[in-house]
């Protein structure tokens, strides 16, 4: 392991947040190329299954995390209950904020067809979304946080899957439309 890799490992160990490459360059006083090389070495050393700690690229930087294999033991030691999974309402609200951010609560409500206050509040409490200014009409706007990217293993928002992946298929759409139209026609025929 090179000296630079060791230093970077130490920095990632100490830093409570993911560290961007630019900050590593500044702190280590090495070149960007050297840092990139050192990270590659580290990535190999800390690949999944090699040690207890793995290298993760999240939230615009690099961070160390414990290997999922040790999750059970870690929760026993730290007496930390497993974070509850997202409810359907929370997941939908989070998806809308993630893809449309910054987005206001009324906009979330419009898409979900239901007032989403409690989901928004819970997500904010869990630190997954946060306020980011106001819309022109004064509604609070929400965006996702760095913690969101960390907890979802995203190196950045551009790593979110392409939203077109979630478009209903043309077949689905045709079928829905036909079904609706059929019902509509039936209604206009006495």
């Amino acid at each position: 392991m090179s000296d630079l890799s060791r230093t970077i490992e130490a920095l990632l160990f100490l830093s409570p947040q993911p560290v961007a490459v630019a900050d590593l360059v500044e702190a280590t006083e090495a070149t960007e190329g050297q840092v990139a090389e050192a990270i590659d070495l580290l990535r190999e050393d800390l690949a999944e299954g090699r040690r207890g700690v793995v290298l993760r690229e999240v939230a615009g930087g690099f961070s160390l995390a414990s290997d999922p294999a040790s999750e059970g033991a870690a929760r026993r030691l730290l007496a930390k209950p497993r974070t509850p999974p997202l409810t359907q309402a929370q997941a939908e609200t989070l998806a809308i904020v993630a893809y449309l951010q910054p987005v206001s609560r009324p906009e979330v409500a419009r898409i979900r067809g239901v007032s989403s206050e409690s989901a928004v509040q819970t997500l904010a409490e869990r630190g997954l979304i946060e306020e980011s200014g106001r819309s022109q009409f004064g509604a609070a706007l929400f965006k996702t946080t760095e913690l969101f990217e960390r907890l979802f293993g995203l190196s950045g928002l551009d790593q979110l899957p392409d939203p077109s992946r979630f478009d209903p298929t043309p077949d689905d759409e045709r079928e829905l439309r036909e079904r609706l139209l059929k019902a509509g026609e039936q209604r206009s025929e006495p």
Partner: protein
Amino acid sequence: MAVADLDLELDVFAGPFDLLVAVLLREEVDLLEVELAEVVVAYIEYLEGKGELELEVATEFLVLIAALLELKSRLLLPGADPELEEMGPEEAVEELLARLLEYRRFRAAAAALAERFEAARGYLYRSAPLPPSLRRVAVDAATAAYDPDRLGAALGDLLVVPPPVDTSHIRPTVSLERRLRALRDALAGRTSIDFDEQFGGEDRLTQAVTLFALLELYRKGEVTWKQSEPLGPIEIRRQESSAR
């Protein structure tokens, strides 16, 4: 199946679709709180499971849900464009379709996110204070960056006692079955009862569901009922022929 029997399990309401419409119109449940997309999805899933379309039922459903949607969109968008009010059936279909598609898209995105969350949940991050030597450095380098008034204001907000939360709309779990039983019990050993006398003390929603139950008993031929004038007393009579 009649559209009335479409069973719903929503956050704020559980019961048949018809009752939902009834309580909405009586303003027992806030329309803003009802996930209409879920109602539609439940219905479409029911249709998919069934594999055939009963046009009459579908039409009835569509008319009702379209009305609710329109009502709700007006509530959500106060003073929105007047075109909304002039919406014809075809436009309503397109509007409904667009909404359903958009909702489906985010529902799918939500599922993908939830899956991703699940996969990343095993990775735990370290959360520890800096070692003392480094903490010292951070303090030395720190300059004022925040306004102390922000803290005072935040504390002041917390001192405000919020108005009691109106939970009157979260009670629609009045069960039809239980109201059926209440009616039958009230009629046991008697030939007739007065609705107000018997149920006048109940809250509005319970009364509404009881009335719904009454209709059900009437349909089954267990009771007859009579109201000689609007808003007058309702007399409920046990059908002698019914075995009970």
